[in-house]
């Protein structure tokens, strides 16, 4: 394979990974916008989505869409109880306190997943059984198209929800100024709960979509969550479009860097990008709010 074909191949896998990172980053952003909470358990929600899907499809002949819906619903319930039992009881939440609680939740979810499914790596069958698509001398896995489709579908739905529905507008108001939103009669507490449910559902969808190509195990959430988190910073904390764009940039740079420079440093690339962005432009590519820099 010549360099051009190789680069194309890396680009394909970069775009696929980018879509996944973007989806995880969207989950972070929804919660951050409603509550200013950074949810360190986001990656574990992705893992749960994937694991439940595998558990459902193993041994049964459950059709794929049904499995998808069940998995997403279960994880949404987990997200709702997460908010209800760990975030809402906080009286004077500090950033350090929130970081530790969400990390506590992530440790808990990881432990529960290990308890239920054990430590082995599992995988599920792809969504469609079509053969790989050939583009020039590079090949594209059909599952990648599914992942891209799901990411863009969710982004579109989310935009429609935020712009067109009354609930979506209320959520935006809540993100802009919680106190003022409460004064005009928006039930802010319900909006916060909804943001956790939405974010968990999105994480689960990402998990279901990626299990056919990346193996799934109880501890895969941590690194996925951290990568999604890098995507958020690249795009700008709090920006919906920014998180998806950040995801794609991260996915592509990582894939090209790992393929063309050094594959052993693959995981470091995301964090080097993260540090670079924080030091040069902490508000990210799409960030508007000026970060307090002293």
């Amino acid at each position, binding site marked *: 394979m010549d360099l051009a074909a190789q680069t194309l191949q890396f680009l394909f896998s970069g775009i696929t990974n980018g879509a996944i990172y973007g989806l995880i980053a969207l989950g972070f952003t929804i919660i951050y916008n409603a509550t200013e909470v950074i949810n360190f358990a986001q990656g574990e929600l992705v893992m749960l989505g994937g694991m439940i899907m595998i558990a459902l499809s193993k041994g049964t002949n459950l059709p794929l869409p049904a499995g998808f819906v069940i998995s997403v619903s279960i994880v949404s319930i987990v997200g709702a109880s997460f908010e209800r039992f760990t975030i809402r009881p906080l*009286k004077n939440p500090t950033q350090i306190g929130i970081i*530790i609680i969400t990390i506590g939740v992530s440790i*808990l979810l*990881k432990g529960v997943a290990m308890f239920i499914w054990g430590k082995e790596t599992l995988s599920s069958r792809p969504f469609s059984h079509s053969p790989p698509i050939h583009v020039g001398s590079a090949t594209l896995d059909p599952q990648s198209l599914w992942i891209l489709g799901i990411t863009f579908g969710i982004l579109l739905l989310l935009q429609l929800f935020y712009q067109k529905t009354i609930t979506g507008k209320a959520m935006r108001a809540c993100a802009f100024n919680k106190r003022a939103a409460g004064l005009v009669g928006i039930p802010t507490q319900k909006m916060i709960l909804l943001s956790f449910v939405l974010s968990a559902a999105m994480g689960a969808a990402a998990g279901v979509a990626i299990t056919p190509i990346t193996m799934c195990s109880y501890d895969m959430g941590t690194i996925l969550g951290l990568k999604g988190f890098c995507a958020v910073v690249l795009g700008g904390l709090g920006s919906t479009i920014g998180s998806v764009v950040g995801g794609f940039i991260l996915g592509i740079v990582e894939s090209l860097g790992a393929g063309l420079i050094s594959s*052993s440093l693959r995981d*470091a690339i995301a*964090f080097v990008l993260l540090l670079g962005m924080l030091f040069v432009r902490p508000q990210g590519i799409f960030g508007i709010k000026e970060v307090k*820099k002293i």
Partner: protein
Amino acid sequence: MLPKRRIYELSVFSGFILLAGLLIQEPYYQNVLIFIGIHAILTVGLNLLMGYAGQISLGHAAFFGIGAYSSGILTATHGWSPLSAMLVAVIVTAVIAVIIGIPSLKLTGYYLAMATLGFGIIVYIMFREMSQFTGGASGLVGIPPLSFGKWTLGTGTDYFFFVWGLLFVVIVLSLNMVDSQVGRAFRAIHDSEIAALSLGIDTSRLKLKVFVISAVYASIAGSIYAHYITFISPSSFGFMFSIKLVTMVVIGGMASIWGALFGAATITILPEILHVFAEYDVIVFGIILIVVMIFMPQGLTCGILDAWQKSKRLARKRALMEQKARL
């Protein structure tokens, strides 16, 4: 000079060290105590940064690891003496802390947390991938035990007294700092950086100073850890260990040197107690973390003290009521 209350606290502490060192001879308990000491050196430093100066670090395992690997590589591969290796490790760590601290400490809150987290993970990946120096994922073996000239630390008692003696020195230095003008400046930065700045406190220099001090404590702890275990691998210096350190500080109570020691002891002993749950102990650990943060956000030390004071106040009130009723 330390105030009277501090001297009283320190003499109780040194009495405890002497008693524990002489009475506890069971290797298992000695081992746990040595780990508490190593972790406490780390958390006292991290508490200066987080509790007093209000700057979060989610990457302190990196400094611990840099200390451990510098000591390990210099002694095991190049045959240096442990003491000179430890000094070089301290210098290396301090230089890295300055380089990473200058841009990071301009950030606040979540952004500082992310920057330190990213730094920690990059260092962890370097430990894993630079296998020609570090031994890679399988680790670095053959690190000699600590020795000073002809005297080599052999028994658990030797290590216990060395680690806890060093912890004593670290605590004295830290208490001295928090009781001084510098300590008051730290607390001013914690409450409002802008107010501190407008009062003429050079906040960025002070923040960098406390960041480097806490990194140096971590490096020393790392060197001792490497010599005590004689084997190190990257998994001991990952993201989870950074989180554990932050947890120790928060559970022990922010802005309390003795709280840091208490937090280190609690989190070190907890897995030993949770041993009955085998590898599922993480579930219990997660629940404890969440419950403590929800109900005692000031940490266990403050939480227990608060509850005690409340019960004392209640008892006093009840006594007063009884007195009144009798009249």
